[in-house]
């Protein structure tokens, strides 16, 4: 039995950590991704079994209840969630990961300090200052991941406005909250020795962290959501890692750190795709009135609009077509209609491709997932750097609910708030259809020169309806 606990269990954890590494590595290559995911799932199973073995004979009642409820909720939601709701889903899952880490840290405190009414510092009770301070960090990071994710979810679900909400003096407020939380953490971890005080300190810390998550995410606009979601993903890993320090468990430290790294890499990719620094995204309040004074606003003049019939006529003569999907495609759930039109064009011998901007949509890879759901072969989805040289030889580009990522102002208007952001150069193609509900500004609230360009045709309407109408016209013409 002793060998089991002192040798087998730690080795099982090591095996699990190695499998997590291999699994995540494979998850980064298209061909091996699915196996990588399965490998990571098996690694998780090994870690869970090892933990249960390590626990030995304890009362399993609550464990089983928790596992059953969690499995049910997790499985049902994972199977039921439509692909269009994936950003919301990922946001909520980030939150639940953060909550789990915070709850573990809290329960350790209750178990070892508050319930035994032990007098003495937390550091003494839980085995050292590192453990007690990482408890505070777990609670801090875990809770702010939870509340930040909930705000992100509410923004994505459009329960609250996707526009940045700028609180007055928010930088000062955030700084105060961070300093307050850390100070409280230090006091909790090393200084206080009264269980009553400790409990109060911990509850206040939960409150402060929760508030911090809200104040950090609420100023960030909808178009910057891919950055926020990747960052929250990173936080949920860091929270797990901190819990690993609390429990002196290396498999938690390793897996958590790798998730933290993965989230940071995605965050960086997203920031690079907008040519902005992380600090600018987090503190910028981008897209709110104070930053869009110069390049934004203004009425559109010289806009040419067309109906589905005219669009279909132009498409009849096209040899090459590039679809440029954006968030509007997701909102209208037009991915299937888009695929249908693509099929129809391909049957007529037209060369069809899709141009994918890294930050199109509301989470990293959003467009890829949507189009995959509609069975668009991923070989047709072309990344920005590869597709940009092709626009000038393209007959028709169809912009479906994308705005800022196709705004030529980003390359030539130095006063534009998005100046410097790499864009899809759709304006170089012979004709551009911009399918859009109205001339209203995008999330960033910036005027788009593309709409006034001579080769642009605005096709007003819901993306799905417009596409269906074009399909109808094309079929009739046959």
């Amino acid at each position, binding site marked *: 039995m002793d060998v089991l606990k002192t040798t087998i269990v730690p080795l099982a954890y090591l095996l699990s950590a190695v499998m997590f590494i291999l699994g995540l590595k494979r998850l*980064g290559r*298209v061909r091996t991704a699915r196996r990588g995911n399965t490998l990571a799932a098996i690694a998780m199973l090994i870690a869970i079994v090892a933990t249960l073995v390590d*626990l030995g004979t304890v009362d399993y009642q609550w464990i089983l209840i928790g596992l059953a409820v969690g499995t049910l909720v*997790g499985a049902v939601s994972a199977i039921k969630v439509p692909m269009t709701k994936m950003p919301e889903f990922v946001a909520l899952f980030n939150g639940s990961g953060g909550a789990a*880490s915070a709850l573990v840290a809290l329960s350790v405190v209750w178990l070892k300090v508050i319930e035994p009414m032990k007098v003495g510092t937390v550091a003494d009770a839980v085995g050292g200052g590192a453990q007690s301070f990482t408890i505070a960090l777990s609670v801090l990071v875990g809770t702010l991941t939870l509340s930040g994710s909930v705000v992100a979810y509410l923004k994505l679900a459009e329960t609250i406005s996707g526009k940045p909400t700028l609180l007055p003096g928010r930088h000062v407020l955030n700084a105060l909250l961070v300093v307050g939380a850390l100070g409280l953490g230090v006091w909790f971890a090393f200084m206080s020795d009264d269980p009553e005080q400790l409990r109060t300190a911990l509850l206040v810390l939960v409150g402060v962290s929760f508030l911090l998550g809200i104040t950090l995410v609420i100023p960030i606009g909808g178009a910057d959501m891919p950055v926020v979601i990747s960052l929250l993903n990173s936080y949920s890993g860091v929270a797990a890692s901190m819990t690993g320090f609390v429990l002196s468990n290396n498999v938690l430290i390793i897996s*958590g750190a790798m998730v933290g790294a993965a989230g940071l890499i995605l965050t960086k990719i997203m920031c690079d795709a907008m040519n902005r620094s992380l600090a600018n995204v987090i503190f910028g309040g981008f897209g709110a009135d104070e930053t869009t004074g110069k390049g934004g606003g203004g009425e559109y003049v010289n806009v040419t609009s067309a109906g589905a019939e005219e669009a279909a006529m132009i498409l009849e003569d096209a040899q090459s077509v590039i679809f440029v999907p954006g968030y509007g495609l997701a909102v209208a759930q037009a991915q299937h209609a888009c695929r249908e039109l693509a099929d129809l064009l391909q049957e007529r011998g037209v060369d069809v491709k899709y141009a994918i901007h890294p930050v199109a949509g509301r989470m990293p890879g959003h467009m890829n997932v949507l189009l995959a759901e509609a069975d668009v072969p991923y070989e047709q989805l072309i990344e920005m750097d590869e597709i940009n040289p092709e626009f000038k030889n393209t007959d028709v580009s169809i912009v479906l609910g994308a705005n800022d990522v196709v705004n030529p102002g980003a390359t030539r208007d130095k006063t534009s708030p998005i100046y410097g952001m790499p864009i899809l150069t759709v304006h170089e193609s012979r004709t551009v259809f911009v399918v859009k509900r109205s001339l209203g500004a995008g999330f960033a609230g910036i005027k788009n020169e593309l709409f006034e360009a001579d080769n642009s045709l605005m096709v007003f309407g819901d993306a799905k309806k417009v596409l269906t109408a074009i399909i109808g016209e094309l079929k009739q013409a046959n």
Partner: protein
Amino acid sequence: MTGALLIGIYVFVLAIFVGFEIIAKVPPTLHTPLMSGANAVSGITIVGALSAATTGHPTIANILGCAAIVCATVNVVGGFLVTDRMLAMFGEKKKKK
């Protein structure tokens, strides 16, 4: 600084580097699956959660532990399943082609 803590910090820092190395160049198609897969992996907190809910009678510690198990399990089961669902979509098309 205790030996265990020092080793923990070593492991933490090295794991971050491993993470950066193995995921550095991920194609955009996999951004979402990588995120949801990584999310499932962060459900590893379940290991801590399990050890936190081991008494039969409901104490506050136990209730917190049980809630942690629920959250972590949702993460693990939901995360791996939804990732598999997405990746299956990517795979199918390849066969069709």
